[in-house]
């Protein structure tokens, strides 16, 4: 099998195809600390792309409550269980990826979910890890915890769906790294559904072929961010493009957050796909669990996020979340503003670090009435 370099695990690894990084790589950063699981992203995606026949229980975007929420049921714990306990400490991952752990005669280590695993997309919503005892009171860190995990396709650098498909129906676009399933070529074998550890390709039982998140490519081609990003009311998402750590550009907000400030981490990097959706980890969740989810460097990411106030550039990049519907390629920080630019260098938006405060008199002379809100 060809060897490819996966920077997230700090080493070369086996993959079904040789290294062929796209010209640009679609990427997203999600701040889990700001997500309230309102599912606006889910509904935006659903109405945009998956309200057709055979897509009734298909959610290209979903938000689940961790650790007990899953869509499909148990997706991550099942893959981790199949992979077995792996050493994940250190900058270089010494365990096996799902490509290296593929059983004899298989292309990747995977499993096919049961039909009913998709039947409860919001199972365990808001469930925490345990119940509170009588007389319990609020402590830090919290005695019981949970967090929300919004998920789309990771548009991986080394996609398992692409590797698993025996007839090259799944492919990665060289222009933007978006991973797609060719709807003309797919024959519904479901090797991608079986192979993808994130379970983001879905089988459509009416068209009888597989479908997946298309990274809103018509919008992205037009310089606009995805539906799940622009509709997010909590402004937790930023979608754009990412480079490798060696080529990181400080004026690209995604590069700055991921490669320079290093506060966002990929989901299950140990599986070896180099996923391109990055998460700012939930800071109140025990580090042991976060490590399993986001890899060995997760504590540094949490600490970096806690100190975001000290890094004006990072703060500026974080201000761009939900500030424009266009894709930010460059950004600049001035005394008062974080300014976003598109690929051509046109200004998209400037966001003030401090919102101006206007104070109004408590009594409105014109209307002869008392104001209840004076700011």
């Amino acid at each position: 099998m060809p060897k490819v370099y996966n920077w997230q695990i700090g080493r070369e690894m086996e993959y079904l195809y040789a290294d062929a990084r796209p010209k640009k790589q679609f990427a997203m950063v999600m701040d889990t600390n700001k997500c309230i699981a309102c599912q606006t992203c889910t509904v935006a995606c659903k109405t945009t792309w998956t309200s057709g026949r055979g897509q009734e229980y298909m959610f290209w975007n979903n938000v689940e409550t961790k650790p007990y929420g899953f869509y499909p049921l148990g997706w991550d714990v099942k893959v981790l269980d199949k992979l077995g306990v792996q050493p994940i400490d250190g900058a270089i991952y010494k365990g096996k990826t799902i490509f290296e752990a593929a059983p004899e005669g298989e292309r990747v280590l995977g499993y096919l979910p049961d039909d009913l695993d998709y039947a409860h997309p919001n199972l365990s919503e808001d469930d925490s890890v345990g119940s509170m005892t009588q007389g319990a009171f609020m402590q830090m860190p919290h005695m019981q915890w949970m967090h929300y995990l919004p998920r789309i396709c990771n548009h991986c650098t080394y996609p398992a769906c692409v590797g698993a498909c025996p007839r090259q129906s799944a492919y990665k676009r060289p222009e933007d790294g978006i991973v797609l399933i060719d709807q003309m070529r797919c024959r519904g074998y479901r090797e991608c559904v079986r192979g993808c550890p994130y379970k983001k390709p879905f089988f459509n039982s009416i068209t009888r072929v597989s479908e997946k998140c298309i990274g809103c490519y018509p919008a992205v081609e037009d310089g606009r961010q995805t539906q799940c990003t622009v509709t997010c009311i909590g402004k937790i998402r930023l979608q754009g493009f990412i480079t490798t750590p060696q080529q990181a550009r400080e004026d690209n907000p995604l590069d700055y957050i991921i490669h320079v400030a290093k506060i966002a981490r990929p989901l299950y990097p140990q599986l070896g796909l180099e996923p391109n959706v990055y998460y700012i980890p939930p800071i109140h969740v025990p580090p042991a669990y976060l490590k399993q989810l986001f890899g060995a460097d997760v504590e540094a990411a949490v600490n970096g996020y806690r100190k975001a106030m000290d890094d004006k550039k990072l703060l500026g990049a974080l201000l761009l979340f939900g500030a424009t519907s266009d894709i930010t390629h460059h950004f600049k920080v001035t005394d008062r503003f974080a300014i976003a630019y598109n690929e051509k260098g046109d200004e998209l938006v400037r966001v003030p670090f401090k919102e101006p405060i206007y104070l109004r008199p408590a009594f409105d002379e014109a209307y002869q009435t008392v104001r209840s809100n004076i700011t």
Partner: protein
Amino acid sequence: MKGIMKLLYCAALGAGLAGCAGTTDTAAPATGAEEKPAVSSSQAAHYAALMAKPAPAPEGGVTASRVSGTAPMLDPFAKEWEQVKPVTVTMTPQVVATPTNPKPAIGDLSVRTLHNGQSLGVLIEWKDATRNDRLVPDRFGDQVAVEIPIAYRSDTPPNPMMGAPGEPVNIIQWRAAFQADLDRKREITIRDNYPNASNDLYPDQFLKAQDVRSYTGAAGVDNPVAKHRDSPVLDQVAEGFGSLTTKPHQEADGRGVWKDGKWRVVITTPMSAAGANAPRLNPGENTVVSFAVWDGSAQEVGARKAWSDWVPLKLAK
């Protein structure tokens, strides 16, 4: 992939495919639109097929007697079939290309052939305790396929494992799910898969046809496996693993019936169809056929199948 599996796989697919050391062109597929087969050396493919040691073909092969009329071509229970002695074809696990199927559920097929000068009919029977024609995320369908070389030369038959570049084969696949659609006489709906399902409204119920396209997936681009068909078989051509392509003009046909724990399927194809990708079958001449079969209840699909070596086929005058 390791050991003998890798050797077989690489030999089968030649030097141009992923997973094989020393390759020059192993980049990930850039676009799925291309229908080019991902294979190269036919010699290597043939070598691998030999290494895979297919079960021997039945001695004497099969003979297609000549009948008059079209009755047996689409009726698996036509009385003409009773006059033909069935031949047992032993199936071989597919272990050459990944993903493999080392323990296939179906061990052998019972095969009969007939022709009427216009069409060749192949009647295939096999034991299958469950009828699998409901395709939902974790359920697969029963399927059977007949393979015929496009241009048969007795000294160098093409690779029986889906042909090779320059050695195209015609693969006609019958699918139980298509048969169920036809028997239902209408397009499938969610209630056929889930009887108690309900859905308020689909985009195609309130949008104009030109606006619905983005909600119709594979059906909207006329993917031959996605749209409602007037035949339960796919008429296809292949030049090696991963290259199977449905022909623009579908000329083969068939019909399958599941009864008493047994599938009885007839697949029929014109003996001289138009186009470069159709085999020429002349009465009085010899060719070869081979078979593949999938048991849906064993999650067999695609490469997870059982296959047979070429079986000599005599077409009576």
